[in-house]
């Protein structure tokens, strides 16, 4: 049997998601031996004609990247969006042009963009997060080898936070977005006493209005990027 061919690609991003894959130290070597993994960062491009699974990190910020992405799509059986930039365009962390002040200061910036990759191509699976959770990546990876799509996690960060028996940050007056954010990160930020900032996108049935109401009752100022999270998911706040 031929080795399964995996491609790992990077568009505009910090490459933190790829670093997270490299951080799978314990199993990395086995994966490299078992599968044909192609990536620029590893210097293992063989210019294959097809991939069984392609992981694409980063958002599309130019025509070049759009063409590259479409080429990858044509070559791949499964395409997985890796990380916040690929899943949601990385809007709130990397680039939010068109937001008030920036537009005022830099006319013309409205023509710049940073788009999630599913705006251009069909995606089989999303691994959200900034950066991705390396264990989640591995789980998805294993499933895709069987052509199985793991259930897109539909729980919330809150529900994972409570499993760590953390105290609620909202109770302490901190603007934590855990209750409306898709889980899968094992509530890592709240576990280190830092508010969830929603990098995994909204959960299936996020009650943004309800959370804003809760913030209001507790005199908590919502974070500025909440509007961006909701805007990119096509919801109004």
């Amino acid at each position, binding site marked *: 049997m031929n080795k399964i061919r995996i491609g790992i690609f*990077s*568009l*505009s*991003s*910090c*490459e*933190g*998601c*790829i*670093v*997270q894959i*490299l*951080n799978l*130290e*314990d199993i*990395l*070597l086995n994966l*490299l*031996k078992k599968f044909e993994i192609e990536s*620029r*960062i*590893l*210097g*293992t*491009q063989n210019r294959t004609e097809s991939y069984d699974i392609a992981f694409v990190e*980063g*958002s599309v*910020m*130019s025509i*070049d*990247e759009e063409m590259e992405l479409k080429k990858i799509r044509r070559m791949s059986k499964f395409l997985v969006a890796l990380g916040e930039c690929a899943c949601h365009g*990385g809007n709130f*962390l*990397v*680039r*939010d*042009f068109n937001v*008030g*002040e*920036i537009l005022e*200061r*830099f*006319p*013309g910036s409205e023509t*710049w963009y*940073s788009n999630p990759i599913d705006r251009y191509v069909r995606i089989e699976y999303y691994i959200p997060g*900034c*950066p991705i959770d390396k264990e989640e990546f591995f789980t998805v990876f294993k499933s895709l080898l069987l052509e199985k799509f793991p259930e897109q996690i539909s729980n919330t960060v809150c529900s994972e936070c409570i499993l760590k028996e953390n105290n609620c940050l909202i109770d302490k007056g901190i603007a934590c977005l855990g209750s409306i954010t898709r889980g899968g990160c094992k509530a*890592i*930020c709240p*576990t*280190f*006493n*830092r508010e969830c*900032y929603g990098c995994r996108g909204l959960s299936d049935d996020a009650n943004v209005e309800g959370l804003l109401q809760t913030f209001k009752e507790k005199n908590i100022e919502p*974070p*500025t*990027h909440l509007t961006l999270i909701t805007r990119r998911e096509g919801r109004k706040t």
Partner: protein
Amino acid sequence: MSHELIEVKGVPKVEGAVDVVVKLVNDNFKVEVRAREGIRLLERLLIGKSYKEIPFIVSRMCGVCPIVHNITSVQALEKALSIEPYEDAKSIREAMVIGGHLQSHLIHLYLFTLPDLVGKKNILEILEGKEELVKTVLRLKRVANHITDTLGGRAVHPITPTVGGLTRYPSKNILETLLMESTLFKKTLREVLEPILEAEIPKFENRTQYLSLHDSRYPILEGKLSVSNEIFFEQEEYENIISYLNEEYSTARHYLINGKPYMVGALSRLNNNYSQLCDDAKEYSRKYRISFPSNEPFVNIKAQAIEMIHLADKIVDILEELTSKPLKQENIKYNIRPGEGVSISEAPRGTLIHHYKVDESGKIIEANIITPTAQNYKSIEECLQNYLTTLIGEKLNTISKEVEKLVRAYDPCVSCSARFLREH
């Protein structure tokens, strides 16, 4: 008359997408190093945001060295608010940064560079015959990551550093475990350094200026700036020394000192701070006959290896100190006030500058970030131009390979640097 001689699209085994174009202009080589990553406007994005969100956002500039970005911004903001955290918090942050340096150097030296040194294409080819070495390196990398994971919450985009201290302090147990691990790291590291330190590197000199921090201790997060051990100046004066320029062909900004290219990174650090290294590191550099100051850009690789010995020593010292007494698990209380702060640190790839102005409500009104790789671009171009003259007569294919190697020796980090903004 100008025509393109060589174009390397997407130099492999570097962080981020960069193309190198070699042109022949009037019989002279002209090299363009073009960052291809999308423009990511970071500084503009920070304006109007609360100072609290800044460390979080800036670590997203780079997935390889997020820790040092994060902590440098925290330090700059602390200066802007005129506060200084307790020593223990500072030590923990330093340990995190060192953990980050170690893992970054390990990736660069073994995943990216070692194949060049032994004439292989990539890590996979090295596996044959050298699997044990790779396994050990990966084990070391895991320890380095474990340090940042446990202290910072996560190795990529750390969580705990915050203005005034840390959001969560490690327990004594955790610190003791880390001490044990890093002591082992220190020992094991020496087993794997040989292939790097012994390797043949191209003999090539390129006189240039070297910028780094300079301090009574080997500098990481503090110190004055030094140019080739000749000019010294305070961090706040950086704008008087460093000037920038935009090149149409790149999404990154380019920097100069005295109108000339300069180099930052491990080589600069060692050139400017050799005497502050720990004894072990000095001994290794004597043993393998690597002397500093050096004008050979490829020595940067060896400088990283020597530096790792020092850093591994240092992290053990820090953790010993932290575990020897009760830990102060407290943040500095502060009031928000308008102010301005500059913090300069040594990131794995060189000098990193963060500079913020904060208004009375804690919102950012001005921000300037200068990354190591952006500072190195002009130096890489100059260096490549000189290097190419030594390669005249070689096959184009060989030349491309050599170009790649030299670019890699600089350990560029393209995503960090891609923030150039066309002024209107």
